[in-house]
């Protein structure tokens, strides 16, 4: 989550959609959506603003909450998964005792300390290249 920030991005998009509609609402743009009833607006600009306002409203009501929900759900899933992994690792270590744990049974970075190569001697191999 920290590296890619997908939930954060979803939340940001939702915030932008909500802010956009809120600004249009404050500017009184709800008046310009009369075209939905077949009433042709006086100018093309009014038609464009009406279309924009209608789109932003439906995005704010239908899309933004979905994005927020998805972000929350993703954070919850990742947090739960991390907790489960940590718990599983702890339990495995405790059961096997020190000195006999195989590195691939651990999710923690046991091999190379900077990259994710977890095979034994990864650090040495990398340094020697």
């Amino acid at each position: 989550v920290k590296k890619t920030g997908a939930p954060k991005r979803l939340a940001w998009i939702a915030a932008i959609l909500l802010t956009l509609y809120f600004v249009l609402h404050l500017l009184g743009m709800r008046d310009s959506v009369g075209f939905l009833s077949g009433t042709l607006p006086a100018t093309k600009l009014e038609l464009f603003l009406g279309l924009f306002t209608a789109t932003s409203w439906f995005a704010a009501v239908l899309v933004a909450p979905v994005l927020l929900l998805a972000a929350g759900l993703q954070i919850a899933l990742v947090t739960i998964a991390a907790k489960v992994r940590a718990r599983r690792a702890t339990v495995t270590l405790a059961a096997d005792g020190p000195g006999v744990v195989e590195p691939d049974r651990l999710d923690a970075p046991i091999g190379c300390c900077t990259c994710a190569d977890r095979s034994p001697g990864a650090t040495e191999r990398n340094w020697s290249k």
Partner: protein
Amino acid sequence: MLDSARRLLAHSHTRGTEPRPFDPVPRPLDTRPRPLVLIVDATCPRRAHARSMRWKHRITDAWLSVVCLAVSTPLWLAVVHVLFVPNDAESDGTRRSVISDRAKGLRDRKLDSLERHASHDTEVGLMRSNNPEWDIMCSTFNVLAFANLALHEPRERARYLGLMDGIIDETLEARRAHGAQHFLLPYWRRAPYVASPMRVLFVEGEIAAMLGARLVVEERPELRSRLEEQIARVVDQMREGPVLSGESYPDECWTVDNAFALVAIRLADVVLGQDHAELLARWVAVARERLTDPQTGMLVSEYTWDGRHKDGPEGSSIFLVAHLLQVVDEGFARDQYDRARQALGFEIAGFAIAREWPASWPNVTDIDSGPTIPLVGANAGASGLAVLAAASFDDQRFLRGLLASLDFAAFPIKDERGLRYGASNQVGDAVLLYALVQGPLWDHLSRSTSSQHGSES
């Protein structure tokens, strides 16, 4: 247990010669020289590996996001209607003595607009530039709404009567000065009317309905004689037609215009003490036989003077026709409403909409009904008039769904002047106000019919 795990992890992070807990044999001391320059290019295997891992994480995250979005979307769509569903008191307010807050808001806005002439003329001008028919339709629905409000709120009767008189006088004046064509779309010139002399049932019927509704609330002698003339014209025009219908445009009879004319005749029967029951019954019999769509059983919206169908059943027509026919033939009206509800009503996740055309008819855009939303076929005109029909037939479930859709998609605007809908116009707001206050006028007609039958027997 935790301490041993932490120790293991700490060991794993130390780079160098310390024996690792998982190494079976301790390794010798590493004395090789360390690189002095950091390798930063893409050939660095460690960095390349780290980069590939980052991408793996990103792709995993993206997939997880997609899954979360796929789960969240139906969840949100299933509950979003809760934000818009009207309270019970509001939807139950129709046909009861209580006027809902929504109706009060619409009423206040109408009163403000008409009494102060604030923006009314501009809005009517804009309406006429779009469709001149909307001008008289707006007047008719306003008068019907005020007639119901006057019966709802006897204390405010004088105020509503004043407004009704103003609207009727304006309409009659426009009719006298410019002719009935003033309220027609320009294509009325395309061909001569089949029936002679040329008469426009759309205009004559709605004027008669306005006069009748006004006189039900309170007597006004000069309007009484006007209603007599108007009804005589309407009845003559309808009797002349092979299917008891009058033209609104050259060789074009519209079911909704004829239904308005029938309502006007019913109102006149009550106000003037006439009896056109035989004409009304014959019209319904002819309509059942010749003006219904064989596939859906609903009344078609448009037909020629001699009864050939020009169009199928249309949402923006049939819901209004069903409501109007309630005072002509309750059973037939109920049957039409049920069929329209079945073929055109659509409910999803707490919202309801009405389609303009049933599945058996191709989508055709009509200037009266406004744009249709693709895929679902939702139509503003049909949905607005479905509110009226659902309210008058006491279909609470459909009504609640329609009102939820109204609040969701019609952009309600509340201010100190009252309530209006951004996605609507003067006609739409008039229809909604009428839909939410209708009841007393129709009840009055029903009572009058019962008492007439009682006195006859």
